[in-house]
């Protein structure tokens, strides 16, 4: 049994490795873009809209509302980044009920990559909103400049915790289902898989919200 999809390697040459993480990530990307394109190619500005458009509008509006609640700011600049985090992680986790599918979020490389994206997005948004000095004063020299080392450690630990939390949850869910399949393969994995779907959705929400909290902390004065 593989601990992560990284260990399922389809092709390798030198350091370039095409493993299950990348393949399933591309699959998810393809599905998301295809679905979005199919729906948005015939959007209607009228009040009579298709089911797909309705679903996507609800999704985008919901993400925007959550961002607004957390950050108390206009959600428009943050929706693409936070929304993509949520949608990618959620779809990755929710597809795990398909036999043979390995969620990319079960790879520490993927979660680390996402956490790194958040790690860089926070200062980018902060500097864009408050300026370079404003951001550093607010984010690293508070409450006193003596806290600078701890603040830097805090930023890194936040990133690591984001990555490890998501990886641990998804990987553990997959592992438990795998172990149960080998012990009692008939019915026992089903409720755990169902719970895994719930956990996956919750983890996607938690990851996106925590990322937004970090960005909001960098972009507001409070």
């Amino acid at each position: 049994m593989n601990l992560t999809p990284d260990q399922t390697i389809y092709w390798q040459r030198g350091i370039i490795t095409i493993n299950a993480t990348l393949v399933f990530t591309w699959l998810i990307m393809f599905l998301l873009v295809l679905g979005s394109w199919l729906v948005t190619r015939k959007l209607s500005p009228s009040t009579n809209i298709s089911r797909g458009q309705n679903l996507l509008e609800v999704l985008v509006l919901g993400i925007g509302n959550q961002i607004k609640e957390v950050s108390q700011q206009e959600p428009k600049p943050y929706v693409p980044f936070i929304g993509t985090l949520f949608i990618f992680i959620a779809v990755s986790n929710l597809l795990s009920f398909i036999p043979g599918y390995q969620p990319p979020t079960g790879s520490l490389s993927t979660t680390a990559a996402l956490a790194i994206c958040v790690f860089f997005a926070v200062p980018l948004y902060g500097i864009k909103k408050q300026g370079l000095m404003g951001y550093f004063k607010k984010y690293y020299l508070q409450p006193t400049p003596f806290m600078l080392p701890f603040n830097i450690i805090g930023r890194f630990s936040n990133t690591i915790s984001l990555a490890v939390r998501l990886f641990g949850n998804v990987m553990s869910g997959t592992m438990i289902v795998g172990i149960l399949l080998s012990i009692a393969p008939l019915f026992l994995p089903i409720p755990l898989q169902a719970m895994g779907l719930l956990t996956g959705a919750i983890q996607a929400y938690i990851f996106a919200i925590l990322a937004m909290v970090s960005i909001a902390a960098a972009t507001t004065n409070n």
Partner: protein
Amino acid sequence: MLIDPFVVIAQIINFLILVWLLKRFLYKPITSAMEARSQRIQSQLATAAIKEKDAEAEKELYRQKQQELEAQKQQWLEQARQEVATEKEILRKQAQDEVNQARSQWYESFEQDKQKFARKMRDSLSEQIALTARKVLSDLANANLEAQITETFINRLYNLDELETETIPTAPSSNPNNIITIRSSFIIPDENRKRLITAVAEQIATNAEVQFETVEDFICGIELLYGGYKISWNLEHYLTELESSTLLMVDSH
């Protein structure tokens, strides 16, 4: 090792590409569609607000027009009432005048009829009375009516009252020849004429000349004219009394 640096970098790139793709194919079109819909609804609401305002203005205009019409209607009704009242009063007065005129005409006609009837009755009665009296006198006393009238008149001359005895003979004659005229409705026979001349000479004037005239207008009677005085016996007196009493009877009924 759990973390593969190549995969991390590849996933970062994948994620950034996904962000760009979803922004291109999901967020931007959906947001644009929602904004377009929002603007469309805003525009429709604004149009509706303008239409509502116009409708309110229109409503207010029609309300004012209705009030004006109502006021006009009341004015017309009041005017019509006044005209009707005036017309009614005019018609009532006309009707009253016509009724009064008709009544007065009727009274006049009635009075004329009454007078005509009385006159006719009087004439008829006098003729009838004269005939009857003549017949009665001729049957009972072998005397005709004219003779009896003449006899009564002669008696009347001989039985003048005191005042007539004092005043008539001393009255100046109305003509220079001192003529006394005796008018009658019938021709007085010569014998009676002589008796009359004698009675006049004895009672009124001795030297007067007596003339006899027969007058058709007399109903039945005889009269003497001298010096502004008149001594007469005429059935007309009785008939006039009868006429008066008859008219009183007609009026009372």
